[in-house]
């Protein structure tokens, strides 16, 4: 079966999609160096910059969140492939130009972290004012924090740290906010259908006709929860309970819930799942203080979703509510 994707040369995917993005949102983003997306109107000097890096093929993540109140630079890698360290360094150098300080946000995937670390080493050797945070909130990785991958958790971190930076917070303050958000969030993914790898035309993973897998990673990395298909309500409850118990949320606490579609799973389904989450929280007397439902990071047309919960405090809520204006996320 031929791959049914609207693409041209598979080797040009990333360049073409980013070109498309800056052409579609010329008032928000521009290209700055090869496959590095920057704001169309750079932030005022004196404010902390946010930089991220990561593979492509996950649109709107990550470059779709460059914009006011969020990221300043996104270094885009290949399809499902981390950007190399030299380009990450280039992104950091742009962010730290003219003595500015910057925060690098990296999702915990081996390649991304390696490129981030190597680039950080060089950047610090050059005397640039840069600090780094790694997101690893996917509880499927087990109890060991460094085995936990970064899924959609980058999104709340971009949001609150981006808002803090926009408000003029120092690098240390931005890092503290990012770390607080990171520490207080947990995520988990479920997959039911594979995507086609856009470069190879091959399915990314195999799953039985009546199976789903809880804990699957962003690129079809196998999880540990292969089971028979369940209803929306059952799936929502299983995942929510795992997350609540891992984050040790107590009655009366206030949490944010984010449901992220993997690609082919419809918004209809995401909303039905969210409904059950809200119902269960009410029953447990846990307050649903903020929420988000949509596609923030996809894996092509994979079917499934990610569920994220986060314990919020008044400062995090205020930063979450602050305005943002990126190509694929706007808040008034």
């Amino acid at each position, binding site marked *: 079966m031929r791959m049914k994707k609207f693409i041209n040369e598979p080797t040009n995917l990333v360049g073409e999609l980013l070109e498309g993005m800056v052409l579609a949102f010329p008032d928000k983003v521009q290209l700055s160096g090869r496959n590095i997306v920057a704001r169309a109107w750079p932030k005022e000097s004196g404010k902390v910059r946010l930089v991220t890096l990561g593979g492509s093929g996950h649109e709107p993540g990550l470059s779709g969140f460059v914009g006011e109140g969020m990221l300043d630079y996104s270094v885009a890698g290949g399809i499902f492939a*981390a950007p190399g*360290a030299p380009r990450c360094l280039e992104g950091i150098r742009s962010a730290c130009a003219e003595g500015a300080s910057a925060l690098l946000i990296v999702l915990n995937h081996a*390649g991304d972290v390696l490129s981030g670390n190597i680039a950080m080493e060089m950047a610090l050797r050059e005397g640039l004012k840069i600090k780094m945070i790694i997101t690893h909130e996917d509880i499927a990785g087990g109890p060991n924090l460094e085995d936990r991958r970064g899924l959609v958790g980058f999104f709340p971190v971009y949001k609150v740290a981006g808002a803090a930076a926009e408000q003029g917070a120092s690098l240390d303050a931005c890092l503290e906010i990012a770390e607080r958000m990171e520490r207080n969030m947990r995520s988990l993914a479920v997959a039911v259908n594979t995507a086609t790898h856009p470069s190879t035309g091959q399915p990314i993973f195999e799953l039985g006709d009546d199976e789903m897998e809880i804990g699957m*990673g962003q690129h079809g*990395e196998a999880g540990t929860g292969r089971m028979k298909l369940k209803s929306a309500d059952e799936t929502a409850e299983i995942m929510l309970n795992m997350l609540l118990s891992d984050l040790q949320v107590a009655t009366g606490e206030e949490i944010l819930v984010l449901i992220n579609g993997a690609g082919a799973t419809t918004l209809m389904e995401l909303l039905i799942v969210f409904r059950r989450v809200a119902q269960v929280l009410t029953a447990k007397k846990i307050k649903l203080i903020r929420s988000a439902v949509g596609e923030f990071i996809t894996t092509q047309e994979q079917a499934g979703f990610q569920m994220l919960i986060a314990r919020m405090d008044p400062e995090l809520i205020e930063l979450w509510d602050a305005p943002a204006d990126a190509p694929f996320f706007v808040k008034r």
Partner: protein
Amino acid sequence: MTDLIGRAELGEMFAQAAACIRREHQHLTALDSIGGDGDHGTTMLRAAEQMERGIEESSTASLTDLLKSVGWKVLGVDGGASSALFGTFFAGMGDVQLFSQDAMNCHDLGRAFQAGLRAMSRQTKAGPGDKTMMDALVPAVTAVTAAANAGKSISDALDDAALAAQLGAESTKDLVARHGRARSLGERTRGYPDAGSTSVALLFRGFSAGLRREL
């Protein structure tokens, strides 16, 4: 018997290593598909390209600059863990202190490999037994040092290293992954060699072939 290698020999070592990887990239992808995300062959193909470029573009550089250049090029690949680690290894080799900038003996080569490993150790905590490329890389580097200490020629040392890498890669079959993407699979990874360690075996097979060819 070789006691010294220069730019041309080092270049041929990398050229043959690249050729070995090109020939086997589909196998590498297949191995990475079992426990990983199935992109290792593609990444190694790109890395091979950059190894060739690195040599080409530094045909007049010092040996350490040539190594750094190859390393930097490989680091520049949009790949994954493997290109970052191999790039770090090659670039790290260039940190070695050489008496001459035009030639290295077997001891120098051993020290260069050791420097490469040291650079890697800043980036990964993985060591032998974790079912990663380290299971092939560490024994290969050790073999070169041992051969140098035993007074062997560089080409014999690389033969030893190729064999050690091969055995190291094969030994990963019985291990359970603890690093990299495959770690989440745990027991399911048993029975197949690790993709990255297989690449190391190919790399050293190429190094040794490159030197034999030159002679």
